[in-house]
Protein backbone atom coordinates (compact mmCIF):
# COMPACT_ATOMS: atom_id res chain seq x y z
CA UNK A 1 0.00 0.00 0.00
CA UNK A 2 1.23 3.46 -0.81
CA UNK A 3 0.77 6.02 1.91
CA UNK A 4 2.48 9.05 0.44
CA UNK A 5 0.46 11.58 -1.48
CA UNK A 6 -0.11 10.63 -5.07
CA UNK A 7 1.02 13.64 -7.02
CA UNK A 8 -1.07 14.28 -10.10
CA UNK A 9 0.91 13.97 -13.29
CA UNK A 10 -1.00 16.76 -14.99
CA UNK A 11 1.47 19.58 -15.62
CA UNK A 12 -0.42 22.21 -13.68
CA UNK A 13 2.75 23.97 -12.68
CA UNK A 14 5.13 26.37 -14.27
CA UNK A 15 8.78 25.73 -13.68
CA UNK A 16 11.59 25.51 -16.21
CA UNK A 17 9.52 24.03 -19.01
CA UNK A 18 6.73 26.59 -18.94
CA UNK A 19 5.99 28.74 -21.97
CA UNK A 20 5.54 31.74 -19.69
CA UNK A 21 8.52 33.82 -18.61
CA UNK A 22 7.10 34.63 -15.17
CA UNK A 23 6.70 30.94 -14.39
CA UNK A 24 10.11 29.98 -15.76
CA UNK A 25 11.62 32.58 -13.45
CA UNK A 26 9.45 31.24 -10.60
CA UNK A 27 8.39 34.69 -9.45
CA UNK A 28 6.29 35.09 -6.34
CA UNK A 29 3.02 35.61 -8.14
CA UNK A 30 2.13 34.86 -11.75
CA UNK A 31 -1.49 35.96 -12.35
CA UNK A 32 -1.52 34.22 -15.69
CA UNK A 33 -0.85 30.83 -14.05
CA UNK A 34 -3.69 31.42 -11.60
CA UNK A 35 -6.21 32.22 -14.30
CA UNK A 36 -5.15 29.25 -16.41
CA UNK A 37 -5.35 26.82 -13.49
CA UNK A 38 -8.27 28.20 -11.56
CA UNK A 39 -10.86 25.95 -13.19
CA UNK A 40 -8.78 22.77 -13.25
CA UNK A 41 -6.72 22.91 -10.04
CA UNK A 42 -7.61 25.64 -7.57
CA UNK A 43 -11.39 25.74 -7.68
CA UNK A 44 -11.84 21.94 -7.46
CA UNK A 45 -9.39 21.86 -4.53
CA UNK A 46 -11.33 24.60 -2.75
CA UNK A 47 -14.63 22.81 -3.36
CA UNK A 48 -13.23 19.53 -2.04
CA UNK A 49 -11.87 21.35 0.98
CA UNK A 50 -15.29 22.79 1.76
CA UNK A 51 -16.96 19.38 1.37
CA UNK A 52 -14.38 17.73 3.64
CA UNK A 53 -14.92 20.42 6.27
CA UNK A 54 -18.70 20.43 6.18
CA UNK A 55 -18.92 16.63 6.51
CA UNK A 56 -16.43 16.53 9.38
CA UNK A 57 -18.05 19.35 11.35
CA UNK A 58 -21.55 17.95 10.79
CA UNK A 59 -20.64 14.45 11.99
CA UNK A 60 -18.56 15.84 14.86
CA UNK A 61 -21.46 18.07 15.88
CA UNK A 62 -23.95 15.20 16.01
CA UNK A 63 -21.60 12.95 18.01
CA UNK A 64 -20.54 15.64 20.50
CA UNK A 65 -24.09 16.89 20.92
CA UNK A 66 -25.24 13.39 21.83
CA UNK A 67 -22.31 12.90 24.20
CA UNK A 68 -22.80 16.31 25.80
CA UNK A 69 -26.52 15.74 26.36
CA UNK A 70 -25.76 12.36 27.92
CA UNK A 71 -23.08 13.86 30.15
CA UNK A 72 -25.44 16.69 31.07
CA UNK A 73 -27.86 14.13 32.49
CA UNK A 74 -25.27 11.68 33.81
CA UNK A 75 -22.37 13.66 35.22
CA UNK A 76 -19.97 10.72 35.55
CA UNK A 77 -19.68 10.51 31.76
CA UNK A 78 -17.91 13.85 31.55
CA UNK A 79 -14.50 12.69 32.79
CA UNK A 80 -13.99 9.67 30.53
CA UNK A 81 -15.22 11.58 27.48
CA UNK A 82 -12.95 14.53 28.27
CA UNK A 83 -9.92 12.29 28.74
CA UNK A 84 -10.52 10.37 25.53
CA UNK A 85 -11.22 13.44 23.39
CA UNK A 86 -8.24 15.29 24.89
CA UNK A 87 -5.93 12.45 23.90
CA UNK A 88 -7.35 12.42 20.37
CA UNK A 89 -6.94 16.18 20.26
CA UNK A 90 -3.30 16.04 21.34
CA UNK A 91 -2.15 13.58 18.68
CA UNK A 92 -0.55 15.56 15.84
CA UNK A 93 -2.59 15.42 12.66
CA UNK A 94 0.24 14.05 10.55
CA UNK A 95 0.52 11.05 12.88
CA UNK A 96 -3.20 10.43 13.21
CA UNK A 97 -3.82 10.40 9.47
CA UNK A 98 -1.05 7.84 8.99
CA UNK A 99 -2.14 5.67 11.92
CA UNK A 100 -5.68 5.42 10.57
CA UNK A 101 -4.66 4.70 7.00
CA UNK A 102 -3.88 0.95 7.40
CA UNK A 103 -7.34 0.37 8.87
CA UNK A 104 -9.50 2.38 6.52
CA UNK A 105 -7.26 2.95 3.50
CA UNK A 106 -6.26 6.05 1.59
CA UNK A 107 -9.81 7.28 1.36
CA UNK A 108 -11.93 10.24 2.22
CA UNK A 109 -13.36 8.17 5.09
CA UNK A 110 -9.93 8.02 6.74
CA UNK A 111 -9.52 11.76 6.43
CA UNK A 112 -13.00 12.35 7.84
CA UNK A 113 -12.48 10.06 10.84
CA UNK A 114 -9.36 11.97 11.80
CA UNK A 115 -10.97 15.36 11.20
CA UNK A 116 -14.07 14.43 13.20
CA UNK A 117 -11.90 13.26 16.09
CA UNK A 118 -10.40 16.74 16.34
CA UNK A 119 -13.80 18.44 16.61
CA UNK A 120 -15.05 16.31 19.52
CA UNK A 121 -13.17 17.92 22.40
CA UNK A 122 -14.07 21.47 21.42
CA UNK A 123 -17.71 20.81 20.63
CA UNK A 124 -18.30 18.54 23.63
CA UNK A 125 -16.66 20.92 26.09
CA UNK A 126 -18.41 24.00 24.77
CA UNK A 127 -21.85 22.38 24.60
CA UNK A 128 -21.59 20.98 28.11
CA UNK A 129 -20.26 24.26 29.53
CA UNK A 130 -23.04 26.16 27.76
CA UNK A 131 -25.71 23.89 29.21
CA UNK A 132 -24.24 23.96 32.73
CA UNK A 133 -24.08 27.76 32.69
CA UNK A 134 -27.84 28.06 32.36
CA UNK A 135 -28.86 29.72 35.66
CA UNK A 136 -30.75 27.35 38.00
CA UNK A 137 -33.48 29.98 38.44
CA UNK A 138 -34.21 29.79 34.74
CA UNK A 139 -34.49 26.02 34.91
CA UNK A 140 -36.77 26.32 37.94
CA UNK A 141 -38.90 28.87 36.14
CA UNK A 142 -39.27 26.51 33.19
CA UNK A 143 -40.33 23.74 35.54
CA UNK A 144 -42.71 26.12 37.29
CA UNK A 145 -44.34 26.89 33.97
CA UNK A 146 -45.11 23.19 33.66
CA UNK A 147 -42.37 22.12 31.27
CA UNK A 148 -41.03 18.59 31.43
CA UNK A 149 -37.30 17.99 31.32
CA UNK A 150 -37.25 17.40 27.55
CA UNK A 151 -39.34 20.47 26.88
CA UNK A 152 -37.17 22.56 29.17
CA UNK A 153 -34.06 21.27 27.43
CA UNK A 154 -35.32 22.01 23.94
CA UNK A 155 -37.05 25.31 24.58
CA UNK A 156 -35.01 26.86 27.38
CA UNK A 157 -31.63 25.29 28.09
CA UNK A 158 -30.39 24.60 24.54
CA UNK A 159 -31.32 28.07 23.24
CA UNK A 160 -29.53 29.65 26.17
CA UNK A 161 -26.49 27.46 25.51
CA UNK A 162 -26.52 28.36 21.80
CA UNK A 163 -23.85 31.10 21.97
CA UNK A 164 -21.37 28.73 23.63
CA UNK A 165 -22.26 25.93 21.19
CA UNK A 166 -21.77 28.22 18.19
CA UNK A 167 -18.49 29.48 19.65
CA UNK A 168 -17.42 25.83 19.72
CA UNK A 169 -18.57 25.36 16.14
CA UNK A 170 -16.44 28.32 15.09
CA UNK A 171 -13.30 26.88 16.63
CA UNK A 172 -14.06 23.39 15.32
CA UNK A 173 -14.73 24.60 11.77
CA UNK A 174 -11.59 26.66 11.55
CA UNK A 175 -9.54 23.85 13.07
CA UNK A 176 -10.88 21.36 10.54
CA UNK A 177 -10.15 23.72 7.65
CA UNK A 178 -6.60 23.97 8.91
CA UNK A 179 -6.12 20.23 9.39
CA UNK A 180 -7.81 19.30 6.12
CA UNK A 181 -4.79 20.74 4.30
CA UNK A 182 -2.68 18.00 5.90
CA UNK A 183 -5.29 15.41 4.93
CA UNK A 184 -4.09 15.76 1.34
CA UNK A 185 -1.30 13.42 2.37
CA UNK A 186 -3.64 10.44 2.56
CA UNK A 187 -6.71 11.57 0.68
CA UNK A 188 -5.75 13.27 -2.55
CA UNK A 189 -8.12 16.23 -2.31
CA UNK A 190 -8.45 19.65 -0.78
CA UNK A 191 -6.18 22.67 -0.78
CA UNK A 192 -3.28 20.64 0.56
CA UNK A 193 -2.96 18.98 -2.85
CA UNK A 194 -1.80 22.09 -4.76
CA UNK A 195 0.52 22.93 -1.84
CA UNK A 196 2.17 19.50 -1.91
CA UNK A 197 2.28 19.56 -5.71
CA UNK A 198 3.98 22.93 -5.72
CA UNK A 199 6.57 21.73 -3.18
CA UNK A 200 7.41 18.68 -5.25
CA UNK A 201 7.62 20.77 -8.43
CA UNK A 202 10.77 22.74 -7.70
CA UNK A 203 8.93 24.76 -5.04
CA UNK A 204 6.66 26.57 -7.49
CA UNK A 205 5.98 29.80 -5.59
CA UNK A 206 2.78 31.08 -7.20
CA UNK A 207 0.92 27.87 -6.45
CA UNK A 208 2.22 27.78 -2.86
CA UNK A 209 1.15 31.33 -2.15
CA UNK A 210 -2.23 31.12 -3.86
CA UNK A 211 -3.22 27.77 -2.31
CA UNK A 212 -1.96 28.86 1.12
CA UNK A 213 -3.81 32.14 0.92
CA UNK A 214 -6.98 30.35 -0.20
CA UNK A 215 -6.83 28.10 2.87
CA UNK A 216 -6.41 31.11 5.17
CA UNK A 217 -9.18 33.02 3.38
CA UNK A 218 -11.54 30.04 3.57
CA UNK A 219 -11.00 29.78 7.34
CA UNK A 220 -11.57 33.51 7.86
CA UNK A 221 -14.70 33.43 5.68
CA UNK A 222 -16.12 30.41 7.52
CA UNK A 223 -15.46 32.11 10.85
CA UNK A 224 -17.21 35.29 9.71
CA UNK A 225 -20.15 33.27 8.40
CA UNK A 226 -20.59 31.55 11.76
CA UNK A 227 -20.46 34.86 13.62
CA UNK A 228 -23.22 36.04 11.33
CA UNK A 229 -25.17 32.83 11.94
CA UNK A 230 -24.90 33.34 15.67
CA UNK A 231 -26.36 36.83 15.38
CA UNK A 232 -29.30 35.49 13.40
CA UNK A 233 -29.91 32.46 15.62
CA UNK A 234 -29.50 34.21 18.96
CA UNK A 235 -30.75 37.78 18.46
CA UNK A 236 -31.27 38.20 22.21
CA UNK A 237 -27.52 38.24 22.91
CA UNK A 238 -27.34 41.65 21.25
CA UNK A 239 -30.19 43.18 23.24
CA UNK A 240 -29.37 45.30 26.28
CA UNK A 241 -25.72 45.81 25.55
Amino acid at each position, binding site marked *: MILAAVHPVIPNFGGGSSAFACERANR*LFCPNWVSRNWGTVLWPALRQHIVLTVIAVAIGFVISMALALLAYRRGWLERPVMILTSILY*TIPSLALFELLAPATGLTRATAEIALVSYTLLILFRNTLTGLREVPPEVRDAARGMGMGSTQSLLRVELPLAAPAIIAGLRIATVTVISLATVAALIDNEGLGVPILTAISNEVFKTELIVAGAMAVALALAADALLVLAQRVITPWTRVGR
Partner: protein
Amino acid sequence: MNDFVEAFKFIGRNGQIPGAPHLPTLVHLTLETLKIAGIGIAIATAIGLPIGLWLGHIDRGSFVAINLGNIWRALPSLAVLAIGVAFLGLGLRNVELALVVLAVPPIITNAYVAISGVERDVVDAARGMGLTGFQVLMRVELPLAVPLIFAGIRTAALFVVSTTTIAALTGYSGSLGDIINNETSYHLSGVLGAAICIAALALLVDLVLSAVQRLLTPRGLRLGGGQKPAPSLAPVTEVA
Protein backbone atom coordinates in the same frame (compact mmCIF):
# COMPACT_ATOMS: atom_id res chain seq x y z
CA MET B 1 -2.62 -5.52 12.62
CA ASN B 2 0.53 -7.04 11.20
CA ASP B 3 1.51 -3.57 9.97
CA PHE B 4 1.53 -2.34 13.53
CA VAL B 5 3.64 -5.26 14.75
CA GLU B 6 6.16 -4.37 12.05
CA ALA B 7 5.94 -0.71 13.09
CA PHE B 8 6.89 -1.56 16.67
CA LYS B 9 9.76 -3.71 15.40
CA PHE B 10 10.91 -0.66 13.42
CA ILE B 11 10.84 1.39 16.60
CA GLY B 12 12.72 -1.39 18.42
CA ARG B 13 15.46 -1.22 15.75
CA ASN B 14 15.72 2.54 16.44
CA GLY B 15 14.58 3.43 12.96
CA GLN B 16 16.90 1.17 10.97
CA ILE B 17 15.80 -1.04 8.10
CA PRO B 18 17.54 -4.43 7.76
CA GLY B 19 19.67 -4.56 4.64
CA ALA B 20 19.44 -0.82 4.06
CA PRO B 21 22.26 1.69 4.56
CA HIS B 22 22.45 3.45 7.91
CA LEU B 23 19.53 5.83 8.49
CA PRO B 24 19.18 8.61 11.05
CA THR B 25 18.15 6.93 14.31
CA LEU B 26 14.72 7.50 15.80
CA VAL B 27 16.32 8.89 18.96
CA HIS B 28 18.25 11.41 16.88
CA LEU B 29 15.17 12.47 14.90
CA THR B 30 13.10 12.76 18.08
CA LEU B 31 15.72 14.97 19.70
CA GLU B 32 15.93 17.08 16.53
CA THR B 33 12.15 17.48 16.54
CA LEU B 34 12.29 18.60 20.16
CA LYS B 35 15.14 20.99 19.39
CA ILE B 36 13.37 22.68 16.47
CA ALA B 37 10.15 22.90 18.50
CA GLY B 38 12.04 24.12 21.57
CA ILE B 39 13.71 26.96 19.71
CA GLY B 40 10.37 27.98 18.22
CA ILE B 41 8.53 27.98 21.53
CA ALA B 42 11.36 29.83 23.28
CA ILE B 43 11.37 32.65 20.71
CA ALA B 44 7.58 32.79 20.68
CA THR B 45 7.42 32.99 24.49
CA ALA B 46 10.11 35.68 24.57
CA ILE B 47 8.06 37.75 22.12
CA GLY B 48 4.51 36.94 23.19
CA LEU B 49 4.70 36.82 26.97
CA PRO B 50 5.89 40.42 27.65
CA ILE B 51 3.34 41.80 25.18
CA GLY B 52 0.48 39.79 26.67
CA LEU B 53 1.47 40.61 30.26
CA TRP B 54 1.79 44.29 29.49
CA LEU B 55 -1.51 44.48 27.60
CA GLY B 56 -3.22 42.64 30.43
CA HIS B 57 -1.62 44.83 33.07
CA ILE B 58 -2.74 48.11 31.51
CA ASP B 59 -6.01 46.33 30.66
CA ARG B 60 -6.07 47.76 27.15
CA GLY B 61 -5.92 46.31 23.71
CA SER B 62 -8.50 43.60 24.38
CA PHE B 63 -9.61 44.01 20.78
CA VAL B 64 -6.11 43.28 19.52
CA ALA B 65 -5.45 40.44 21.94
CA ILE B 66 -8.73 38.63 21.38
CA ASN B 67 -8.87 39.11 17.63
CA LEU B 68 -5.29 38.01 17.31
CA GLY B 69 -6.40 34.73 18.86
CA ASN B 70 -9.30 34.46 16.42
CA ILE B 71 -7.25 35.20 13.33
CA TRP B 72 -4.55 32.84 14.51
CA ARG B 73 -7.01 29.97 14.57
CA ALA B 74 -7.66 30.58 10.92
CA LEU B 75 -4.03 30.02 9.95
CA PRO B 76 -3.55 26.48 8.64
CA SER B 77 0.00 25.49 9.60
CA LEU B 78 0.70 23.85 6.24
CA ALA B 79 -0.40 27.04 4.49
CA VAL B 80 1.81 29.21 6.70
CA LEU B 81 4.75 26.91 6.03
CA ALA B 82 4.00 26.92 2.31
CA ILE B 83 3.79 30.69 2.07
CA GLY B 84 6.99 30.93 4.11
CA VAL B 85 8.78 28.56 1.73
CA ALA B 86 7.74 30.74 -1.21
CA PHE B 87 9.27 33.83 0.37
CA LEU B 88 12.25 32.47 2.27
CA GLY B 89 13.02 29.19 0.56
CA LEU B 90 13.53 25.85 2.26
CA GLY B 91 15.39 25.79 5.52
CA LEU B 92 15.36 26.07 9.28
CA ARG B 93 14.77 29.83 9.09
CA ASN B 94 11.47 29.39 7.33
CA VAL B 95 10.34 26.63 9.69
CA GLU B 96 11.20 28.62 12.80
CA LEU B 97 9.46 31.69 11.41
CA ALA B 98 6.30 29.68 10.78
CA LEU B 99 6.50 28.18 14.28
CA VAL B 100 6.86 31.61 15.87
CA VAL B 101 4.03 33.08 13.78
CA LEU B 102 1.78 30.22 14.89
CA ALA B 103 2.86 30.15 18.54
CA VAL B 104 2.90 33.85 19.48
CA PRO B 105 -0.87 34.60 19.27
CA PRO B 106 -2.11 31.97 21.78
CA ILE B 107 0.59 33.07 24.21
CA ILE B 108 -0.40 36.74 23.92
CA THR B 109 -4.13 36.03 24.08
CA ASN B 110 -3.88 33.76 27.12
CA ALA B 111 -1.50 36.07 28.99
CA TYR B 112 -3.84 38.96 28.29
CA VAL B 113 -6.97 37.08 29.37
CA ALA B 114 -5.20 35.76 32.47
CA ILE B 115 -3.78 39.07 33.71
CA SER B 116 -6.78 41.23 32.91
CA GLY B 117 -9.00 38.61 34.55
CA VAL B 118 -7.34 39.01 37.95
CA GLU B 119 -9.93 40.40 40.32
CA ARG B 120 -10.03 44.17 40.49
CA ASP B 121 -10.34 44.14 44.30
CA VAL B 122 -7.10 42.20 44.67
CA VAL B 123 -5.23 44.65 42.46
CA ASP B 124 -6.73 47.61 44.32
CA ALA B 125 -5.72 46.10 47.66
CA ALA B 126 -2.16 45.67 46.41
CA ARG B 127 -2.07 49.27 45.24
CA GLY B 128 -3.46 50.38 48.57
CA MET B 129 -0.58 48.59 50.27
CA GLY B 130 1.75 50.83 48.30
CA LEU B 131 2.95 48.46 45.57
CA THR B 132 4.07 50.08 42.34
CA GLY B 133 2.57 49.07 39.01
CA PHE B 134 5.45 46.74 38.24
CA GLN B 135 5.31 45.19 41.70
CA VAL B 136 1.58 44.62 41.33
CA LEU B 137 2.23 42.81 38.06
CA MET B 138 5.08 40.65 39.36
CA ARG B 139 3.87 39.86 42.88
CA VAL B 140 0.10 39.80 42.57
CA GLU B 141 -1.19 39.49 39.03
CA LEU B 142 1.43 37.12 37.67
CA PRO B 143 1.18 34.44 40.39
CA LEU B 144 -2.61 34.46 40.15
CA ALA B 145 -2.50 34.27 36.36
CA VAL B 146 0.14 31.57 36.06
CA PRO B 147 -2.18 28.62 35.37
CA LEU B 148 -3.90 30.29 32.42
CA ILE B 149 -0.70 31.86 31.08
CA PHE B 150 0.99 28.50 31.16
CA ALA B 151 -2.02 26.90 29.48
CA GLY B 152 -1.34 29.24 26.55
CA ILE B 153 2.30 28.21 26.38
CA ARG B 154 1.31 24.56 26.60
CA THR B 155 -1.15 24.97 23.75
CA ALA B 156 1.47 26.75 21.68
CA ALA B 157 4.05 24.06 22.47
CA LEU B 158 1.80 21.25 21.25
CA PHE B 159 0.97 23.23 18.17
CA VAL B 160 4.65 23.76 17.53
CA VAL B 161 5.58 20.08 17.96
CA SER B 162 2.83 19.15 15.55
CA THR B 163 3.83 21.80 13.03
CA THR B 164 7.47 20.75 13.22
CA THR B 165 6.49 17.33 11.90
CA ILE B 166 4.33 18.89 9.19
CA ALA B 167 7.35 20.97 8.11
CA ALA B 168 8.77 17.77 6.63
CA LEU B 169 6.04 17.90 3.99
CA THR B 170 7.36 21.25 2.83
CA GLY B 171 10.78 19.77 2.29
CA TYR B 172 12.53 20.65 5.53
CA SER B 173 14.32 17.54 6.71
CA GLY B 174 15.52 16.83 10.21
CA SER B 175 12.42 15.85 12.16
CA LEU B 176 10.34 12.74 12.69
CA GLY B 177 8.11 13.96 9.88
CA ASP B 178 10.88 13.02 7.43
CA ILE B 179 10.05 9.36 7.79
CA ILE B 180 6.40 9.96 7.00
CA ASN B 181 7.38 12.01 3.99
CA ASN B 182 9.67 9.25 2.72
CA GLU B 183 7.59 6.12 2.40
CA THR B 184 9.73 4.89 -0.48
CA SER B 185 12.71 4.21 1.79
CA TYR B 186 10.91 3.50 5.03
CA HIS B 187 7.92 1.43 3.82
CA LEU B 188 4.61 1.33 5.62
CA SER B 189 6.09 -0.07 8.84
CA GLY B 190 8.53 2.84 9.14
CA VAL B 191 5.82 5.41 8.46
CA LEU B 192 3.56 3.85 11.07
CA GLY B 193 6.45 3.61 13.54
CA ALA B 194 7.22 7.29 13.07
CA ALA B 195 3.55 8.17 13.46
CA ILE B 196 3.46 6.25 16.75
CA CYS B 197 6.59 8.09 17.91
CA ILE B 198 5.11 11.48 16.98
CA ALA B 199 1.86 10.74 18.80
CA ALA B 200 3.75 9.47 21.86
CA LEU B 201 6.04 12.51 21.81
CA ALA B 202 3.10 14.93 21.72
CA LEU B 203 1.30 13.13 24.55
CA LEU B 204 4.51 13.07 26.59
CA VAL B 205 5.18 16.77 26.02
CA ASP B 206 1.62 17.54 27.08
CA LEU B 207 1.97 15.36 30.18
CA VAL B 208 5.25 16.98 31.21
CA LEU B 209 3.92 20.49 30.61
CA SER B 210 0.73 19.81 32.56
CA ALA B 211 2.90 18.62 35.47
CA VAL B 212 4.98 21.82 35.22
CA GLN B 213 1.77 23.82 35.11
CA ARG B 214 0.63 22.17 38.33
CA LEU B 215 3.98 22.92 39.98
CA LEU B 216 3.86 26.55 38.91
CA THR B 217 0.35 27.06 40.25
CA PRO B 218 0.56 28.84 43.61
CA ARG B 219 -0.52 26.59 46.45
CA GLY B 220 -3.31 28.95 47.39
CA LEU B 221 -4.95 28.42 44.03
CA ARG B 222 -4.47 24.67 44.20
CA LEU B 223 -6.16 24.48 47.59
CA GLY B 224 -9.11 26.44 46.34
CA GLY B 225 -10.96 23.33 45.24
CA GLY B 226 -9.35 22.95 41.86
CA GLN B 227 -9.04 25.33 38.99
CA LYS B 228 -11.93 27.19 37.59
CA PRO B 229 -12.71 25.81 34.16
CA ALA B 230 -11.41 27.99 31.37
CA PRO B 231 -14.12 30.22 29.96
CA SER B 232 -15.61 28.55 26.92
CA LEU B 233 -14.98 31.53 24.69
CA ALA B 234 -11.34 32.10 25.57
CA PRO B 235 -8.96 30.73 23.00
CA VAL B 236 -7.11 28.27 25.16
CA THR B 237 -6.48 25.21 23.03
CA GLU B 238 -5.75 24.37 19.47
CA VAL B 239 -4.23 21.60 17.37
CA ALA B 240 -2.21 21.45 14.21
